[in-house]
């Protein structure tokens, strides 16, 4: 074959080519040599001399295809009208499908045959992608398409346009039949329907944009509408015969079936649309019904129903789910309130935390099991717990949760028989509850006081556990929150070191103090020791040597420090040898001092004791009382003051040779609790004022509301201040001339340097 252009007559070549084209498109066997000849015929025509005949070839081919499609429509698709179907012969869908399968394959081959025309002649004039993208070319009717595309377009024009309504009707009938038979439609039939539906897509597949337009307009719209009507109908039927719980099960089943059905028949682009339609009709439109038993399901915790309800409600917008969530929230709240409100007695703090934890764990587990850990439900749990934990019993009473939780920690960290792993676990759990507390500063106050007591009186179960807890708090609330706790903790370990060194020092210098001395040195400022007013006290000479030795040693070790002895927190052991048996008694320093006075005489008046020891009335009575109660000393009157005589009880006996005089100090008094709470309020005011000044210094000018917001976000870590308190602080700062109201606006402040 020569590639050289030559002079040819169109009429000589075309009939031969047309004949082959017909064979190709009807999938009739074509010899390779014939195929090759035709291929070169196309070439020859396209490059013919003197004028290329490509346009003419295109025109004739187009005409041929139009004719062919029309012929197929008449002869193969429309034969016998509808009657053949009733005879069991192929119906319209089947015939259309068969014809389409043939044609769509044939046109692909024909496209190959015309490849020279396609590539050399037509592609050149085709609009480029960018041009079509910007749409600046009006789609020219005369524009030539590649043969494959042309064939598909002709199919659309002459076949689909003509048959569309009939086809769609048949398809919908087919889908309806599948629904009616519960998806057991004959496989072959499914294939046909699927093929027909996809032909609407394939026929436009070559288009770069809007290739689904035909499918959507022609089929998808009516299909969704019909499905919608079917769903509504089904929903109505279900409503009549089902309970809510059955209805939800049914809906889940239907959704699944419809999903599979859609996959079986439809183009992928329709799947989400159909699903949405289905949800709309079965769920959104029936929300009232679904919710009608919501309260019961939640309060009885019917897990299967709740699970179903979650599955059913999951796809719909969040705001529509709110009813389930609110009901759930209320349920947790009421259960929480129930478990914590009736608490009474000594161990209220333990019950409070453990009950609350039970509630929290139970619902956390339920959310994981039933609601797939959905964040909406988790936040409902958080809200419910926070509102139970921060609830005030009445408007006037303060919320005591912070106190309870702190005391709970104290119980855990105090010496007990519980094993360490369990304590550790409980402390970790405790943090869960702690996080819900709004008044974290109150917690901190209580915690630090209890920690101080544990450390000073050596009641801690283990120092590791103490440190672990402080670290947990640090993790939850930050460095500043635990700064002082940490300093307290390290003071104790430093003191232990110091004692060891001191004892070595004593040994090295051959001094024997005769007593077992253990001294804790605390740093001022870090410990919540109340007002650290030093109670006047004439230290008995028995102690003096120890004190002096230690102070000397301490000052050698550190410079610039002064030591203040906190005698009210010291205690020791005294050996009593004046009785038949000897006893070792643990008591406070003041008590030791009192008893030591009886070394030289058997009877003293209260006044004498007080004068010798320089004790004030309050301290004297507080410490004298337990000694009288222990019967080591006898008093001539109940009034422990003035001339009342105190006598050594020489007939004292006790089965135990080692015991302790209970001290008034270690028990927490209601006044102390109140004092703690009041001091929190003072701290809050200072914190807020500092925060306001800091914010204003940075911003210079700020609106009232913006300022409040910033203050709130700053204080969030440790507490939630009420707005009135913030306002008061603003007022007092205006009085102190830190800030002022701006001249032109009432609700704006500016910083005064």
């Amino acid at each position: 074959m020569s590639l050289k252009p030559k002079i040819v007559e169109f009429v000589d070549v075309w009939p031969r080519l047309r004949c082959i084209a017909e064979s190709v498109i009807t999938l009739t066997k074509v010899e390779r040599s014939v195929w090759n000849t035709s291929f070169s015929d196309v070439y020859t025509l396209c490059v013919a001399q003197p004028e290329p005949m490509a346009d003419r070839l295109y025109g004739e081919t187009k005409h041929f295809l139009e004719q062919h499609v029309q012929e197929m429509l008449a002869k193969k698709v429309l034969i016998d009208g509808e009657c053949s179907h009733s005879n069991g012969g192929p119906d319209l869908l089947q015939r259309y499908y068969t014809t389409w399968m043939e044609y769509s394959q044939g046109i692909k081959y024909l496209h190959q045959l015309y490849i020279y025309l396609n590539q050399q002649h037509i592609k050149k004039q085709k609009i480029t992608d960018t041009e079509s993208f910007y749409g600046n070319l009006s789609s020219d009717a005369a524009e030539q398409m590649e043969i494959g595309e042309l064939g598909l377009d002709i199919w659309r024009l002459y076949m689909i346009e003509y048959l569309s309504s009939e086809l769609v009707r048949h398809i919908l009938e087919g889908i309806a039949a599948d629904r009616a038979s519960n998806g057991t439609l004959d496989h072959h039939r499914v294939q046909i329907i699927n093929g027909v539906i996809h032909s609407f897509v394939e026929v436009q597949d070559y288009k770069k944009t809007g290739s689904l337009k035909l499918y959507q307009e022609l089929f998808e719209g009516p299909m969704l509408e019909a499905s919608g009507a079917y769903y509504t109908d089904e929903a109505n039927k279900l409503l009549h015969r089902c309970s809510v719980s059955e209805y939800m099960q049914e809906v889940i089943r239907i959704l699944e079936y419809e999903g599979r059905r859609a996959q079986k028949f439809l183009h992928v682009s329709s799947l989400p649309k159909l699903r949405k339609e289905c949800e709309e009709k079965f769920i959104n439109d029936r929300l009232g019904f679904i919710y009608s038993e919501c309260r019961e399901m939640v309060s009885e915790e019917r897990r299967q129903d709740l699970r179903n309800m979650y599955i059913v409600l999951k796809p719909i917008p969040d705001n529509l789910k709110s009813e389930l969530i609110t009901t759930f929230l209320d349920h947790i709240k009421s259960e929480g309130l129930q478990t914590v409100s009736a608490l009474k007695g000594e161990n209220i703090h333990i019950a409070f935390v453990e009950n609350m934890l039970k509630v929290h764990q139970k619902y956390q587990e339920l959310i994981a099991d039933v609601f797939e850990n959905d964040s909406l439900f988790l936040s409902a749990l958080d809200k419910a717990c926070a509102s139970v934990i921060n609830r005030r019993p009445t408007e006037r009473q303060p919320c005591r949760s912070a106190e309870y939780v702190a005391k709970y920690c104290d119980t855990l960290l105090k010496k007990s028989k519980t094993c360490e792993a369990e304590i550790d676990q409980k402390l970790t759990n405790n943090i869960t509850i702690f996080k819900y507390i709004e008044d974290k500063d109150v917690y901190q106050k209580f915690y630090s006081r209890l920690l101080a007591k544990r450390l000073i009186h050596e009641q801690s179960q283990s120092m590791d556990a103490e440190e672990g807890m402080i670290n947990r708090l640090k993790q939850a609330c930050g460095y500043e929150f635990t700064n002082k706790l940490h300093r307290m903790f390290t003071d104790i370990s430093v003191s232990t070191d110091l004692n060891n060194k001191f004892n070595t020092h004593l040994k090295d210098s051959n001094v024997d103090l005769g007593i077992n001395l253990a001294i804790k040195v605390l740093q001022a400022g870090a410990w919540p020791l109340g007002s650290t007013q030093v109670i006047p006290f004439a230290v008995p000479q028995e102690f003096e040597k120890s004190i002096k030795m230690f102070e000397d040693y301490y000052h050698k070790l550190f410079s610039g420090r002064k030591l203040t002895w906190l005698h009210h927190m010291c205690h020791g052991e005294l050996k009593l040898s004046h009785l038949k048996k000897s006893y070792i008694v643990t008591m406070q320093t003041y008590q030791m001092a009192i008893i030591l006075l009886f070394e030289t005489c058997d009877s003293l008046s209260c006044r004498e004791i007080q004068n010798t020891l320089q004790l004030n009335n309050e301290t004297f009575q507080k410490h004298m009382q337990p000694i009288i109660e222990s019967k080591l000393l006898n008093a001539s009157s109940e009034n422990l003051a003035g001339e009342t005589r105190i006598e050594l009880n020489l007939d004292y006996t006790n089965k135990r040779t080692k015991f302790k005089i209970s001290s008034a100090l270690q028990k927490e008094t209601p006044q102390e609790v109140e004092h703690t709470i009041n001091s929190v309020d003072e701290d809050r005011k200072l914190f807020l004022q500092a925060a306001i000044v800091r914010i204003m210094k940075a911003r210079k000018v700020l609106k009232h509301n913006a300022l409040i917001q910033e203050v709130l976000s700053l204080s969030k870590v440790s507490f939630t201040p009420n707005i009135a308190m913030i306002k008061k602080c603003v007022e007092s700062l205006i009085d102190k001339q830190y800030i002022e109201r701006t001249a032109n606006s009432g609700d704006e402040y500016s910083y005064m340097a």
Partner: protein
Amino acid sequence: MADDPENSVDRTTDDGDASKPEKMFTLKKWNAVAMWSWDVECDICAICRVQVMDSCLRCQADNKRDVMGRQDCVVVWGECNHSFHHCCMSLWVKQNNRCPLCQQEWSIQRMGK
């Protein structure tokens, strides 16, 4: 007494023997608690207005870690007996080598440890 050592020895042994049962109360153990603070006249550092027992503002902002229970932020005394955070003062003297309170030439008398 020095003239009569035997006598004195005797007496002590007598005393010792007699005092042992006579001593009615003996201190066995003492768990004492003391608090230390900087030995300063004024509790507040005049430069940063924070208590000298706490670390200075700068150190607090930097969240400096404790070193053996004590933050690095120690106190310094000048010859004039005024005291400040050492951190605050070392910044101050870069600008002005005088005590901020009394305007005397600043020289360190001692440092807290």
